């Protein structure tokens, strides 16, 4: 939050500095040709840039031309670049932990690899940003509090100024500058120079000695000068400028600009006064400036504002040089002001607008260039992005994902495959996501966010889980799909674009071509075939709150007529594989009891009918139920004991999950039950007939005395046995004692 604000502020500071330096340049080159009012108006641009965090994109913006500005405006993207390497490191780590055990059913019986926790790793740039943002906020707060204190203290003293009655003169002066507000004049012996005081109801306060000792004509100049300040609302701009200074205190260019702008403000005010008097009062006016300055020598000398040429000298020169400007200069400066205003007040165009232009073209000539795009939202947290209008969001200029990056877009599941290089483009995703906008044909369709399934933050936005490499999907909501709202992903404009760009995979309904099925099974893994239905499982990037290796998959089936049925969406994935098998007329798998966040913390045994109905769950003690398997009409799994404690119970459950019976106590790690025998691992692989009378027998003598690292189930009754991490596994096939080496 603070870091984001700080980043935004830095960007504003840089942009404003560029504008300021440009104005200084203009001031230097054209200083004599234009009125000071012109430059004063230009300073307003800097002020706006310093305080207003957003602006309209425009073709005319200087920030299209200055590449330096563009890269620095995205100081965040600079940070991303650095992060990219970190995130790709992270990705590598992830893939190690993800892929290591392959399709293992049984793994890490004897050893488990602690999962790397990417959240723990510290990004040095984030640390620096963090530290600097705190320094900044500290400085700004101190300055701000001090300013308020100084302002209030001074106000308190100025409150005691005494009403000075000279209505005639005030009216006369107000009339000269066409000011309709009625302004009261006060006197005080506590101020060295006339000031305007009060933000809501400004009044002019004259030093007592001036009010009493100056000639009528001089008083008239002074009062007119102050009234011009009031008319121009300078008395408001000045404290606002100080506020900007407090925020941008670290930027010397802004301090410099503040001083110059104050000088220009006074001189612009002098010009106005000179121009409203019918006679040439320059000499008198300049003389009274000197007179007022020397009237009393105040010890405090300029300080902050004493800078360069003494201000009185430049003002006197300014006054003496003053000519009532001709029509030409007036028109010219107005035009230049508008032009410079457009150039400096607008931001460079981002690509969203660009692509609108492009797409109008491409629609005309039928070509397609980047018609579907996912753009990162610039410098905003997901939460803040949600609060804004879709059209208000400032997007990065280049899309992070386009239709060219995806082979095909599966319209049913909004899933698609991406190359690794695409993931490398995605910056670090914080736990509250990284917002993006999906753009089709230049139109912003919906807001979504890159998400990470490490996150415990939930959202109703469509999300892309970045921890899933290769095949991703835009899932609606994390971890669950919101209910009762229309799906933003199904927008017709996206449909149109994808269809026209041939990226469209109409999922399973229209697949008549059997060959086309290859693309389909690339989305889901073909599990088994039964009664004309093919059963598939597909990992979906949602859920998996905790722990790291827990994910969610869906099981669906299709028949020859092309109809697809989703059977269950809560299949537990661990280490990239799921435990799932047909058990008579039912399907049994490790899954989740429900869609509550807490449910995702532990797996349960789930049994559904083949059509997905009659969902039953069985809550094993302490998330036990390891190595669930099916044998002769029953389910078997390892019951819970304290980890590492032996013997361990082997439990039996009917496929409708109603009756749980302990079948044996085994002195080892349970592998599976096959044909009435429980197989388990100790110093070798043993088997035990589940009749409570038989003794365990060594089944695989060859493994005796060897340290078995892990066993993976490769098919129904085949296992890969690893002795150690480097050796090739050999294949065990149940119930035979035969062993095959993999070569």
């Amino acid at each position, binding site marked *: 939050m603070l870091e984001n604000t700080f980043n935004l502020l830095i960007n504003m500071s840089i942009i404003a500095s560029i504008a300021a330096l440009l104005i200084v340049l203009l001031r230097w080159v054209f200083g004599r040709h234009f009125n000071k009012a012109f430059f004063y108006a230009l300073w307003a641009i800097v002020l706006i840039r310093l305080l207003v965090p957003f602006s309209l994109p425009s073709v005319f913006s200087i920030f299209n031309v200055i590449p330096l500005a563009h890269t620095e405006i995205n100081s965040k993207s600079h940070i991303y670049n650095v992060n990219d390497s970190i995130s790709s490191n992270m990705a590598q780590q992830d893939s190690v932990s993800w892929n290591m055990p392959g399709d293992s059913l049984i793994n890490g019986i004897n050893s488990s690899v602690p999962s790397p926790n990417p959240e723990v790793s510290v990004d040095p740039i984030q640390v620096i940003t963090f530290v600097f943002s705190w320094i900044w906020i500290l400085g700004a707060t101190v300055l701000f509090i001090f300013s308020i204190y*100084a302002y209030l203290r001074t106000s308190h003293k100025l409150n005691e100024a005494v009403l000075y009655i000279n209505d005639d003169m005030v009216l006369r002066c107000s009339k000269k500058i066409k000011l309709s507000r009625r302004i009261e004049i006060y*006197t005080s012996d506590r101020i060295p120079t006339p000031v*305007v005081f009060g933000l809501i109801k400004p009044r002019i306060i004259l030093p007592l000695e001036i009010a009493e000792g100056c000639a009528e004509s001089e008083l008239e100049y002074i009062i007119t000068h102050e009234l011009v300040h009031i008319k121009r609302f300078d008395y408001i701009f000045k404290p606002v400028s100080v506020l900007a200074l407090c925020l941008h205190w670290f930027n010397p260019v802004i301090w410099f600009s503040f001083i110059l702008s104050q000088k220009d403000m006074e001189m612009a005010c002098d010009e106005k006064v000179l121009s409203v008097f019918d006679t040439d009062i320059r000499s008198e006016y300049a003389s009274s400036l000197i007179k007022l300055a020397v009237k009393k020598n105040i010890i405090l000398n300029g300080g902050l504002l004493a800078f360069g040429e003494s201000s009185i000298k430049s003002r006197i020169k300014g006054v003496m040089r003053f000519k009532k400007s001709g029509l030409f200069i007036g028109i010219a400066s107005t035009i230049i002001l508008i032009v410079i205003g457009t150039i400096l007040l607008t931001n460079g165009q981002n690509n969203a607008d660009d692509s609108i232009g492009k797409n109008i073209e491409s629609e005309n000539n039928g070509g397609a260039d980047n018609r579907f795009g996912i753009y990162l939202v610039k410098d905003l947290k997901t939460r803040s992005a949600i609060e804004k209008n879709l059209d208000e969001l400032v997007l990065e200029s280049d899309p992070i994902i386009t239709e060219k990056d995806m082979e095909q877009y599966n319209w049913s599941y909004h899933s698609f495959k991406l190359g690794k290089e695409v993931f490398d483009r995605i910056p670090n995703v914080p736990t509250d996501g990284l917002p993006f906008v999906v753009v089709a044909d230049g139109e912003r369709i919906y807001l979504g966010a890159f998400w990470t399934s490490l996150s415990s933050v939930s959202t109703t936005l469509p999300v892309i889980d970045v921890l899933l490499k290769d095949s991703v999907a835009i899932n609606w909501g994390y971890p669950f799909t919101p209910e009762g709202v229309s799906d933003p992903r199904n927008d017709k404009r996206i449909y149109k674009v994808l269809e026209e760009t041939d990226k469209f995979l109409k999922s399973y309904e229209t697949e008549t071509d059997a060959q086309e099925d290859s693309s389909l099974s690339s989305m889901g893994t073909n599990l088994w075939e039964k009664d004309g239905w093919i059963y598939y499982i597909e990992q979906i990037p949602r859920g998996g709150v905790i722990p790291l290796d827990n994910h969610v998959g869906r099981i669906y089936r299709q028949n020859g007529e092309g109809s697809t049925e989703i059977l269950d969406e809560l299949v537990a994935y661990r280490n990239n594989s799921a435990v799932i098998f047909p058990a008579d007329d039912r399907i049994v798998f490790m899954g989740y009891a429900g869609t509550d966040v807490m449910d995702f913390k532990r797996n349960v045994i789930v049994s559904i009918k083949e059509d997905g109905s009659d969902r039953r769950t069985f809550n094993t003690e302490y998330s036990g139920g390891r190595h669930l398997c099916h044998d002769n009409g029953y389910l078997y799994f390892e019951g819970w004991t304290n980890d590492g404690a032996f013997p361990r119970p082997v439990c039996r459950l009917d496929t409708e999950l109603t009756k749980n019976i302990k079948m044996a106590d085994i002195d080892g790690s349970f592998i599976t039950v096959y044909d009435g025998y429980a197989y388990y691992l100790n110093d070798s692989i043993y088997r035990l007939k589940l009749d409570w009378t038989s003794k365990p027998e060594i089944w695989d003598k060859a493994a005796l005395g060897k340290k078995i690292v892990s066993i993976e189930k490769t098919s129904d009754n085949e296992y890969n046995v690893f002795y150690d991490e480097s050796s090739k596994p050999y294949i065990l096939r149940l119930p035979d004692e035969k062993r095959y080496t993999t070569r």
Partner: protein
Amino acid sequence: MGKIKIFDAEYKFMNIIWEHSPIPSTELVKVASRKLGWKKSTTYTVIRRLCERGAIKNENSIVYSLINREQVMRSETEEHLDKVYDGSLKLFFTAFLQKEKLSKDEVDELKKIIEEYGKKEK
């Protein structure tokens, strides 16, 4: 009894009290608002300060003058010793000009500039 130091604003306020004393403080607030343009809080602040200095007393919301014009020493402000105040004036308030310490030479130089420009025009 020595003379009491009174600044300009206070002196103008004292004038009202001398004219009306004794005067209920609520009435005084109204008169000060009309004649001096003061807010209620400002008037009470000054009443309190003058009470502390023994120039007036405020009993049961009635203000009495304790001194006469002869016992008052009109004094010049010492505000210029206050840097916060000076700085704040410069920062927050649009002023006619910032006071600068000018030497005689500098004044002469400035005058010369005015003269020169004046001549050029003619």
